[in-house]
């Protein structure tokens, strides 16, 4: 039996007084790739943020268990230290802090040990090559002045360097040109195959999924997970949209 990694049970999530997620349950086993789709405003990012522990999103019911531990009340840094990662839809810019210094600190914090600089630099260079990133980006300020596509690559670079067990990718493919999608997909594939990482991929398109082997597809509508299917669901949604799921969601709400 596959090793259980993440169990989300009946999660209710609110911001201020508005409930955004209603009774979401989700199971992810080690190494699995799950795709999360849904119309704009359905609550996909909200779910990603909540799993990662963003304090703006309050869990008002349910629980999140990661690697056998209830992490519902843990802060984001503790979750990351236990092996979670979130790639942002819009990564932050930090003037004065270089990408390499940021990564180095993150790796130090994660392991609690000094990082061997030489090995770090070598791995950084190799990973940047894989992502077709200019090596000079390592010494540039974190995300400052980078294009949308470059920022996404920088997020995947961090994913590969930090080696989490479970990564949430929030629209990592949106706004990327064809080549960039291919490069970023190759990076994610590397994480998936060579590092055995599990994924929750939030996306609106199928392009990023072409290179990845998908285990499950979930559909989120108005804060409810209304359907779970196999990889074939992605194509189905692409063709027919979310209409039938929206109808199902309305029916579920009535009950």
């Amino acid at each position, binding site marked *: 039996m596959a090793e259980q990694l993440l169990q989300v049970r009946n999660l209710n999530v609110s911001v201020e007084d508005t409930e955004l997620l209603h009774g979401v349950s989700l199971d992810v086993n080690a190494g699995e790739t799950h795709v999360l789709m849904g119309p704009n405003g359905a609550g996909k990012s909200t779910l990603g943020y909540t799993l*990662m522990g963003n304090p703006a999103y309050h869990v008002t019911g349910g629980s999140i268990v990661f690697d056998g531990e209830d992490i519902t009340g843990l802060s*984001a840094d*503790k979750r*990351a230290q236990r092996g979670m990662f979130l790639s942002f839809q819009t*990564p932050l810019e930090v003037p004065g802090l270089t990408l390499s210094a940021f990564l180095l*600190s*993150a790796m130090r914090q994660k392991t609690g040990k000094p990082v061997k600089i030489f090995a770090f630099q070598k791995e950084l260079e190799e990973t940047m090559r894989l992502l077709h990133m200019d090596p000079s980006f390592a010494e540039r300020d974190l995300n400052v002045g980078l294009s949308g596509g470059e920022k996404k690559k920088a997020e995947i670079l961090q994913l590969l360097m930090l080696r989490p067990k479970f990564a949430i990718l929030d629209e990592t493919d949106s706004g990327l040109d064809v080549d960039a999608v291919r490069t970023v997909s190759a990076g994610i594939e590397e994480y998936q195959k060579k590092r055995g990482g599990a994924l929750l991929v939030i996306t609106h398109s199928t392009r990023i999924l072409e290179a990845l082997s998908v285990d499950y597809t979930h559909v989120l509508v108005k804060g409810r997970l209304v359907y779970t299917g196999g990889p074939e669901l992605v194509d189905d949604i692409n063709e027919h949209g979310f209409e039938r799921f929206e109808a199902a969601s309305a029916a579920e709400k009535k009950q």
Partner: protein
Amino acid sequence: MNITVNRLPDLTWNRLGMNYGVIRDADNLLRQAAGIDTTQEGLEAGVSYRRIGREEAQRILDAAPAQVPEKIVAGKLPIYHAQRFATGLGGDYDAFVAGLGLDTELLEVAAGERPEAPVLWHVDFYDSSCAVTQQIIHVGKNASLTLIMDYSSAPEACGFAGISTKVILEDGARLHLSKVQMLGRGYLHTDDLGASLGAGADLIFNQLELGGEDVYVGAQVEQIGDKSRFTSRLAYLTRKKGSIDITYNAVQRGRKTESDMSFDGVLYDSAKKIWRGTIDFRNGSAGSVGHENENVLMLSEDAENKSMPLILCEEEDVEGQHGSSIGRLADDILFYFGTRGIDERAAEEMMVDARIGTVTREIPDAGVRERIGSFLQRTV
């Protein structure tokens, strides 16, 4: 006796306690203050250093790009008239320094000379010193200079460290000036800058205020010549019961002048900070632009921050912009760092380093940058 410093060039706001700063009980300073030795490295051909008396200093200042006599505008203090060569801390402080009767140090770059290596100017303040140093930096026509001044002392030392720097940039001259303050935690520190810029002159000014207890910094840059440019970056750390009082005035008089000032600070504990940043577009400054941006990271509930941005326009065809971000480390930054396993404390430290780092990296000398790094490690 009190010394009033850092007057705002316009009193229309009239907020209590913000229009100027006060150095209290300065009688002691007056009685005890003396000169102090400084050292200079990297004086290449074309760059000269000597000590001069008051009259010669005055002659040099009087010959600077002329500060046009101005009309007294209603509501505006005639502070520029009080000083023949205007400075940020202002006339009272200037008179205090003049009253000490010290020599002036003169660093001159001959016209057309462009030495590549920076001049390193070092002042070491001994414990319990009460010392003042004043200098004129004169960069000739189309000449260029990189100058790095640093002030240090033993970590626990206290005293008074006063600096007074006047800069003259002739037409087409360029000065890349860095001032790095790494004094002991008990210092009263004053650092005054006045600059007069000719046509096409370019002043780049980096200022790091990292140590000391009570700090007063002022900069007044008179952009007299057309197309003169002024770029400044100040970063400071203020801790414990320390305070910092800052005034920067970009006085844009020539046509098509540019100013760009940024201020990055971190306040810890019960530190206090007042900042006044003025972009002053004068008659004749048509086509000029000015930007100022302030960021203050408040790492304590007890810290006190006051900010007074001001844009004054006597011309229509000018563009002035002010931006600011003041407060605790933003939640979105904390969360972003968190998703990478970095906790709040480490995130704060990294953000402090980042702020200081944006100025440190502009200082073109690896040795000085290293000393800044070890000073920060020692004090944080």
